[in-house]
Protein backbone atom coordinates (compact mmCIF):
# COMPACT_ATOMS: atom_id res chain seq x y z
CA UNK A 1 0.00 0.00 0.00
CA UNK A 2 1.07 3.55 -0.68
CA UNK A 3 1.68 5.49 2.43
CA UNK A 4 0.64 8.96 3.46
CA UNK A 5 3.54 11.34 3.00
CA UNK A 6 2.63 14.11 5.42
CA UNK A 7 -0.25 16.05 6.82
CA UNK A 8 -0.93 19.67 7.70
CA UNK A 9 -3.44 20.69 10.35
CA UNK A 10 -4.63 24.21 11.10
CA UNK A 11 -7.08 25.48 13.68
CA UNK A 12 -9.52 28.02 12.28
CA UNK A 13 -10.98 30.56 14.66
CA UNK A 14 -14.43 32.09 14.17
CA UNK A 15 -14.61 35.72 13.01
CA UNK A 16 -10.85 35.94 12.83
CA UNK A 17 -10.84 38.13 9.76
CA UNK A 18 -7.35 39.48 10.31
CA UNK A 19 -5.72 36.14 9.67
CA UNK A 20 -8.44 34.84 7.38
CA UNK A 21 -6.94 32.87 4.53
CA UNK A 22 -3.58 32.43 6.18
CA UNK A 23 -4.03 28.68 6.73
CA UNK A 24 -4.75 28.27 3.03
CA UNK A 25 -1.79 30.32 1.93
CA UNK A 26 0.48 28.38 4.30
CA UNK A 27 -0.88 25.12 2.92
CA UNK A 28 -0.15 26.35 -0.57
CA UNK A 29 3.43 27.23 0.32
CA UNK A 30 4.00 23.86 2.03
CA UNK A 31 2.63 21.89 -0.91
CA UNK A 32 4.71 23.91 -3.34
CA UNK A 33 7.81 23.42 -1.23
CA UNK A 34 7.23 19.68 -1.31
CA UNK A 35 7.07 19.60 -5.08
CA UNK A 36 3.35 18.97 -5.51
CA UNK A 37 2.16 19.59 -9.07
CA UNK A 38 1.21 23.21 -9.74
CA UNK A 39 -2.36 22.60 -10.94
CA UNK A 40 -2.99 20.42 -7.89
CA UNK A 41 -1.65 23.11 -5.56
CA UNK A 42 -3.94 25.68 -7.18
CA UNK A 43 -7.02 23.49 -6.78
CA UNK A 44 -6.20 22.58 -3.19
CA UNK A 45 -5.53 26.25 -2.40
CA UNK A 46 -8.92 27.29 -3.75
CA UNK A 47 -10.79 24.53 -1.90
CA UNK A 48 -9.00 25.30 1.37
CA UNK A 49 -9.56 29.03 1.06
CA UNK A 50 -13.31 28.66 0.54
CA UNK A 51 -13.62 26.12 3.35
CA UNK A 52 -11.52 28.26 5.67
CA UNK A 53 -13.53 31.41 4.91
CA UNK A 54 -16.80 29.61 5.54
CA UNK A 55 -15.56 28.35 8.89
CA UNK A 56 -14.48 31.86 9.85
CA UNK A 57 -17.68 33.56 8.71
CA UNK A 58 -20.32 31.00 9.60
CA UNK A 59 -19.04 28.52 12.16
CA UNK A 60 -17.95 28.54 15.78
CA UNK A 61 -14.51 27.39 14.69
CA UNK A 62 -12.96 24.21 13.43
CA UNK A 63 -10.03 22.45 11.86
CA UNK A 64 -8.62 22.36 8.37
CA UNK A 65 -6.61 19.26 7.59
CA UNK A 66 -4.68 18.41 4.45
CA UNK A 67 -3.17 14.97 3.84
CA UNK A 68 -0.66 14.39 1.10
CA UNK A 69 -0.69 10.93 -0.49
CA UNK A 70 1.39 9.78 -3.44
CA UNK A 71 -1.64 9.75 -5.72
CA UNK A 72 -3.87 12.43 -4.18
CA UNK A 73 -4.46 15.21 -1.69
CA UNK A 74 -7.20 14.77 0.90
CA UNK A 75 -8.79 17.84 2.45
CA UNK A 76 -10.92 17.71 5.54
CA UNK A 77 -12.64 20.78 6.98
CA UNK A 78 -14.54 20.14 10.17
CA UNK A 79 -16.30 22.63 12.40
CA UNK A 80 -18.25 22.47 15.63
CA UNK A 81 -21.42 24.14 14.51
CA UNK A 82 -23.97 25.45 13.94
CA UNK A 83 -24.39 23.21 10.88
CA UNK A 84 -26.39 24.04 7.77
CA UNK A 85 -30.20 23.91 7.77
CA UNK A 86 -30.72 23.50 4.04
CA UNK A 87 -27.61 22.08 2.45
CA UNK A 88 -29.08 21.78 -1.03
CA UNK A 89 -29.82 25.48 -1.01
CA UNK A 90 -26.40 26.37 0.42
CA UNK A 91 -24.75 24.50 -2.46
CA UNK A 92 -26.55 26.56 -5.13
CA UNK A 93 -24.39 29.08 -6.97
CA UNK A 94 -25.24 32.55 -5.69
CA UNK A 95 -26.86 31.50 -2.42
CA UNK A 96 -25.32 33.32 0.52
CA UNK A 97 -26.25 34.43 4.00
CA UNK A 98 -23.14 36.61 4.32
CA UNK A 99 -23.90 39.84 6.21
CA UNK A 100 -23.45 43.16 4.37
CA UNK A 101 -20.21 43.99 6.20
CA UNK A 102 -18.68 40.78 4.86
CA UNK A 103 -19.53 41.87 1.33
CA UNK A 104 -17.26 44.88 1.72
CA UNK A 105 -14.44 42.42 2.24
CA UNK A 106 -15.32 40.66 -0.98
CA UNK A 107 -17.24 37.76 0.57
CA UNK A 108 -20.74 36.54 -0.07
CA UNK A 109 -20.63 35.62 -3.76
CA UNK A 110 -22.36 32.39 -2.86
CA UNK A 111 -19.75 30.61 -4.92
CA UNK A 112 -17.86 28.86 -2.14
CA UNK A 113 -19.51 25.47 -2.39
CA UNK A 114 -19.77 25.44 -6.21
CA UNK A 115 -16.13 26.44 -6.27
CA UNK A 116 -14.98 23.70 -3.91
CA UNK A 117 -16.96 21.13 -5.88
CA UNK A 118 -15.62 22.32 -9.22
CA UNK A 119 -12.02 21.92 -8.08
CA UNK A 120 -12.49 18.56 -6.36
CA UNK A 121 -12.41 15.08 -7.87
CA UNK A 122 -14.38 13.79 -4.89
CA UNK A 123 -16.49 16.15 -2.82
CA UNK A 124 -18.92 15.51 -0.03
CA UNK A 125 -20.46 17.49 2.77
CA UNK A 126 -22.02 16.17 5.94
CA UNK A 127 -23.85 18.63 8.11
CA UNK A 128 -26.20 18.49 11.05
CA UNK A 129 -27.97 21.55 12.40
CA UNK A 130 -26.84 22.07 15.97
CA UNK A 131 -23.76 19.93 15.53
CA UNK A 132 -21.47 20.97 12.72
CA UNK A 133 -20.28 20.65 9.17
CA UNK A 134 -17.69 18.31 7.71
CA UNK A 135 -16.33 18.79 4.22
CA UNK A 136 -14.29 16.10 2.55
CA UNK A 137 -12.54 16.71 -0.74
CA UNK A 138 -10.04 14.76 -2.80
CA UNK A 139 -7.84 16.11 -5.57
CA UNK A 140 -5.98 13.49 -7.62
CA UNK A 141 -2.41 14.23 -8.52
CA UNK A 142 -2.49 12.81 -12.01
CA UNK A 143 -5.12 11.76 -14.52
CA UNK A 144 -3.91 8.13 -14.34
CA UNK A 145 -4.98 7.93 -10.73
CA UNK A 146 -8.55 9.05 -11.17
CA UNK A 147 -9.86 5.51 -11.47
CA UNK A 148 -8.63 3.35 -8.63
Amino acid sequence: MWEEKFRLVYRVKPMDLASAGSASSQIKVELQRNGIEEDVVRKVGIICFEAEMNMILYSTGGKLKVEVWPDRIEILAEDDGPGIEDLQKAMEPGYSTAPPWAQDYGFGAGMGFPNMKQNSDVFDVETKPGEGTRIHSVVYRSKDNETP
Partner: protein
Amino acid sequence: MKIKEIAEKIEGKVITGEDRLDEVVEKGFAADLLSDVLALTEESSCLITGITGPQVIRVAEVLNIPLIIIARGKQPSKALVESARAAGIPVILTNKTVFETCGILYSNGMKPCKIKIFHGVADESSSFVD
Protein backbone atom coordinates in the same frame (compact mmCIF):
# COMPACT_ATOMS: atom_id res chain seq x y z
CA MET B 1 3.27 45.89 -19.80
CA LYS B 2 5.73 46.39 -16.99
CA ILE B 3 4.25 47.08 -13.57
CA LYS B 4 5.81 50.53 -13.51
CA GLU B 5 4.22 51.35 -16.87
CA ILE B 6 0.87 50.15 -15.60
CA ALA B 7 1.20 52.46 -12.61
CA GLU B 8 2.03 55.39 -14.87
CA LYS B 9 -0.84 54.81 -17.29
CA ILE B 10 -3.46 54.67 -14.57
CA GLU B 11 -1.84 57.48 -12.57
CA GLY B 12 -1.45 55.07 -9.72
CA LYS B 13 0.81 54.90 -6.74
CA VAL B 14 2.84 51.77 -6.01
CA ILE B 15 2.67 51.12 -2.28
CA THR B 16 4.24 47.65 -2.00
CA GLY B 17 6.44 45.38 -4.09
CA GLU B 18 8.59 48.26 -5.32
CA ASP B 19 11.33 45.77 -6.22
CA ARG B 20 9.14 44.11 -8.85
CA LEU B 21 8.37 47.14 -11.01
CA ASP B 22 10.16 45.70 -14.03
CA GLU B 23 8.08 42.52 -14.08
CA VAL B 24 5.70 42.18 -17.00
CA VAL B 25 1.98 41.59 -16.48
CA GLU B 26 0.06 40.61 -19.60
CA LYS B 27 -3.40 39.76 -18.36
CA GLY B 28 -6.05 41.24 -16.14
CA PHE B 29 -9.26 40.38 -14.31
CA ALA B 30 -11.61 42.67 -12.40
CA ALA B 31 -13.88 41.61 -9.54
CA ASP B 32 -15.16 42.75 -6.18
CA LEU B 33 -15.94 39.27 -4.91
CA LEU B 34 -13.10 37.00 -3.90
CA SER B 35 -15.02 33.85 -4.75
CA ASP B 36 -15.41 35.12 -8.28
CA VAL B 37 -11.67 35.48 -8.56
CA LEU B 38 -11.21 31.98 -7.16
CA ALA B 39 -13.99 30.48 -9.25
CA LEU B 40 -13.43 32.04 -12.60
CA THR B 41 -9.82 32.78 -13.32
CA GLU B 42 -7.96 29.99 -15.05
CA GLU B 43 -4.55 31.59 -15.15
CA SER B 44 -2.47 34.11 -13.32
CA SER B 45 -3.36 37.70 -14.08
CA CYS B 46 -3.45 40.99 -12.25
CA LEU B 47 -6.55 41.83 -10.23
CA ILE B 48 -8.34 45.17 -10.47
CA THR B 49 -10.66 45.53 -7.51
CA GLY B 50 -12.29 47.64 -4.82
CA ILE B 51 -11.64 45.11 -2.06
CA THR B 52 -9.51 46.57 0.71
CA GLY B 53 -9.26 43.70 3.23
CA PRO B 54 -6.15 41.56 3.65
CA GLN B 55 -7.87 38.42 2.32
CA VAL B 56 -7.28 39.68 -1.20
CA ILE B 57 -3.56 39.14 -0.59
CA ARG B 58 -4.22 35.56 0.56
CA VAL B 59 -6.13 34.95 -2.63
CA ALA B 60 -3.26 36.49 -4.58
CA GLU B 61 -0.88 34.07 -2.90
CA VAL B 62 -3.08 31.06 -3.58
CA LEU B 63 -3.53 31.97 -7.26
CA ASN B 64 -0.10 33.49 -7.98
CA ILE B 65 -1.63 36.86 -8.78
CA PRO B 66 1.33 39.08 -9.68
CA LEU B 67 -0.25 42.49 -9.04
CA ILE B 68 -3.24 44.00 -7.21
CA ILE B 69 -4.71 47.30 -8.37
CA ILE B 70 -7.08 48.96 -5.90
CA ALA B 71 -9.34 51.32 -7.79
CA ARG B 72 -11.74 54.21 -7.18
CA GLY B 73 -9.58 55.80 -4.53
CA LYS B 74 -10.27 53.13 -1.94
CA GLN B 75 -7.78 53.00 0.89
CA PRO B 76 -6.43 49.56 1.72
CA SER B 77 -6.56 48.39 5.31
CA LYS B 78 -3.32 48.40 7.26
CA ALA B 79 -3.56 44.61 7.38
CA LEU B 80 -3.67 44.47 3.57
CA VAL B 81 -0.56 46.59 3.24
CA GLU B 82 1.28 44.51 5.83
CA SER B 83 0.23 41.23 4.20
CA ALA B 84 1.21 42.47 0.75
CA ARG B 85 4.58 43.60 2.00
CA ALA B 86 5.21 40.28 3.75
CA ALA B 87 4.18 38.35 0.64
CA GLY B 88 6.14 40.66 -1.67
CA ILE B 89 3.10 41.34 -3.83
CA PRO B 90 2.94 44.71 -5.61
CA VAL B 91 -0.12 46.84 -4.88
CA ILE B 92 -1.04 49.95 -6.90
CA LEU B 93 -3.63 52.49 -5.73
CA THR B 94 -5.49 54.60 -8.25
CA ASN B 95 -8.28 57.16 -8.03
CA LYS B 96 -9.70 55.94 -11.33
CA THR B 97 -12.70 53.63 -11.34
CA VAL B 98 -12.41 49.93 -12.10
CA PHE B 99 -14.05 50.69 -15.45
CA GLU B 100 -11.57 53.36 -16.44
CA THR B 101 -8.59 51.42 -15.12
CA CYS B 102 -9.59 48.41 -17.20
CA GLY B 103 -10.21 50.60 -20.24
CA ILE B 104 -6.78 52.18 -20.05
CA LEU B 105 -5.00 48.87 -19.54
CA TYR B 106 -6.98 47.17 -22.29
CA SER B 107 -6.25 49.87 -24.79
CA ASN B 108 -2.58 49.58 -23.90
CA GLY B 109 -2.53 45.93 -24.80
CA MET B 110 -3.46 44.13 -21.61
CA LYS B 111 -5.50 41.02 -22.37
CA PRO B 112 -8.38 39.45 -20.46
CA CYS B 113 -7.47 36.29 -18.59
CA LYS B 114 -9.08 33.01 -19.49
CA ILE B 115 -12.11 32.24 -17.35
CA LYS B 116 -14.44 29.35 -16.63
CA ILE B 117 -18.09 29.94 -17.27
CA PHE B 118 -20.35 28.53 -14.59
CA HIS B 119 -23.61 27.07 -15.81
CA GLY B 120 -24.21 25.55 -12.43
CA VAL B 121 -27.90 26.28 -12.08
CA ALA B 122 -29.36 23.94 -9.51
CA ASP B 123 -32.88 25.22 -9.89
CA GLU B 124 -34.63 24.03 -13.05
CA SER B 125 -36.96 26.99 -13.12
CA SER B 126 -34.13 29.39 -13.93
CA SER B 127 -33.25 28.31 -17.43
CA PHE B 128 -31.31 31.13 -18.99
CA VAL B 129 -28.74 28.66 -20.23
CA ASP B 130 -29.53 26.46 -23.23
